[in-house]
């Protein structure tokens, strides 16, 4: 009994640390708001000439960007928004199922040793910089995937999105979507895998105990548990796809149309790549216009995340 008496020496109650820690945590939360507000206000400030400035000068700027095809900011940004969303959505569609598949493979199918190796490979791939995907996509994938797109255009050309002839070289939305899918795949996989591995053993056993097959067990006990995590992982991926600059810049042959002809060149461009392409040679007003498009991208991400959050909230109730 004596031992605990000795242990009960006067101790630092940690009350101050407790309060300080709480303040720091709140401050960190608020800092996010401040940082974001700063970015938003800056964008707005720099884009202000678009709204408050000389409209004829704006028109001239937009005309110089588009070779006279668009005459105001909205005509300019419209196809860019379309292209951005198109490319990112395609990438997400391609990546999502494969990523969830790999995550399940690692968490529930692969033997333990293999799973460990695969996990590290996936983490490594998540870290491959976009400029390398740009190099690879532009120099290796584009020539390699050409025949495949030709095949698609020939046999699936009756579907409007696959209307041929496939561009040669294939610097098209379809190719970019594939590259972006490859880029976001490891991100979605990595987060989903972590979540799946955390799925409670108790519920998995319950499912198996009821005579569920492995897949049924996954459906009953793993996917419901991981759903919101997987959705937020996908949003992470979608966010990256929406904002990806270098890979798109180095691969895509851009255009400013509302076309969904995925296999043809010079149809679409993304906002981020467009900024990177135009910024170096832009004058002050040009920079304002580009930042205006950046602001629009910002708002798109806001909306996408807002909607995704609503979905997640509903799913987790």
């Amino acid at each position, binding site marked *: 009994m004596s031992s605990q008496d000795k242990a009960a020496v006067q101790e630092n109650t940690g009350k101050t640390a407790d309060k300080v820690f709480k303040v720091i945590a709140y401050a960190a939360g608020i800092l996010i708001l401040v940082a974001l507000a700063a970015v938003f206000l800056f964008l707005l400030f720099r884009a202000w000439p678009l709204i408050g400035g000389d409209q004829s000068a704006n028109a001239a700027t937009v005309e110089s960007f588009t*070779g006279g095809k668009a005459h105001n900011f909205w005509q300019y940004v419209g196809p860019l928004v379309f292209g951005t969303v198109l490319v990112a959505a395609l990438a997400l569609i391609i990546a999502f199922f494969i990523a969830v598949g790999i995550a399940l493979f690692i968490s529930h199918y692969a033997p333990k040793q293999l799973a460990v190796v695969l996990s590290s490979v996936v983490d490594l791939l998540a870290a491959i910089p976009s400029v390398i995907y740009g190099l690879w996509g532009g120099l290796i994938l584009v020539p390699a995937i050409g025949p495949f797109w030709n095949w698609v255009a020939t046999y699936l050309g009756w579907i409007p999105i696959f209307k041929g002839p496939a561009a040669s070289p294939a610097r098209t939305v379809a190719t970019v979507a594939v590259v972006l899918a490859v880029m976001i795949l490891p991100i979605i996989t990595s987060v989903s895998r972590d979540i799946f591995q955390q799925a409670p053993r108790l519920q998995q056993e319950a499912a198996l105990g009821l005579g569920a097959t492995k897949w049924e067990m996954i459906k009953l006990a793993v996917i419901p548990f991981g759903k919101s995590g997987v959705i937020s992982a996908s949003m992470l991926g979608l966010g990256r796809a929406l904002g990806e600059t270098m890979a798109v810049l*180095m691969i895509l042959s851009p255009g400013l149309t509302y076309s969904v002809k995925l296999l043809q060149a010079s149809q679409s461009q993304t906002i981020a790549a467009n900024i990177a392409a135009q910024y*170096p040679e832009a004058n002050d007003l040009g920079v304002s216009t580009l930042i205006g498009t950046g602001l629009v991208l910002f708002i798109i991400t806001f909306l996408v995340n807002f909607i995704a959050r609503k979905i997640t909230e509903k799913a987790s109730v």
Partner: protein
Amino acid sequence: ACGDNTSSSSNGSSSSASAEKISGDFQGAGASSQQSAVEAWIASYQATNPDAKIAYNPTGSGAGVTTFLTGATAWAGSDASLTNDQVSQSKDVCADGTTAFDIPAYVSPIAVVFNLKDVSGQGKHLNMDADTIAKIFDGKITKWNDEAIAKQNPKVTLPDTAITVVHRSDKSGTTQNFVSYLKDAAPSSWTYDLSENWPNEVGQGGKGTSGVISTVKQADGTIGYADASQAGDLGTVALKVGEKYVPYSAEAASKVVDASPLDDSAQGDNRVVVKLDHNTTADGAYPLVLVSYDIACPAYKDANTAKFVKSWLTYVVSKDGQDVAAKNAGSAPLSDTMRAKITKSIDAIKTE
């Protein structure tokens, strides 16, 4: 410093240049077209001025000029000459109420390159006049064996391959010079406004010169335009000048610059702006060139910067400097007459 590639012999004080050695950190930014040349210049310049640390950031002409106008860089490289507006803005950064000036520093032919099975190859040419080129790049001529091309190349068997036009997808001085050539030399076939962005939706776009070249290389039947130093083993087009077809070369490019007048509408002191004569008929001239300028101030707030800029620009336009660039970046050296005009402007930089 750490990792520098200086040979032990060249950084000694042995070189006997009587001129005062320059030292310090200096920044330039601007046109990416000059990058290779500037790198060669920096390396050679530092051989005699080992204490000068020079960084050139190839951000692009527009950003380069903008940065220069904030005073953050000592000089700028730009594919376009200054606008009058920019000249008056420069009062804020140049000392003593002076305004910035621009001088040609880098002249390079723009090659029209193509990739066509059994036809293209290193040093191989197809003959075309400006009108044909304009029609190809406007999507009016879509097959390689089109009458218009075949007529000018009787000795070549042209395949029935579709033409894929490749142009720059970013804003670019190269594009501006190329379309400006088409507009001047084939006004009836090229009706677009002059701009740094590609004006139509024909073909494919590539980011930067490297994007254009790799796109051209990746498929059969492509045609594009790029700084001639990057043409590599692609086929190139010989332009019709007068009655002859002239393939690109440094000398041919120099000729058109010499044959062109200065732009006297340029406002401001010390400016040397070339008004390229795209319709020249001078013998052996190659009219499709890019003239890239260096932009500087006649007076700087910081004396050391002024000293550096003066010595740097003097070296750049010197025969030595131009030869280094010609050798390593494939540019066309400035002629002596041109150099004489430029030197006057450089000499105007006040170092005291």
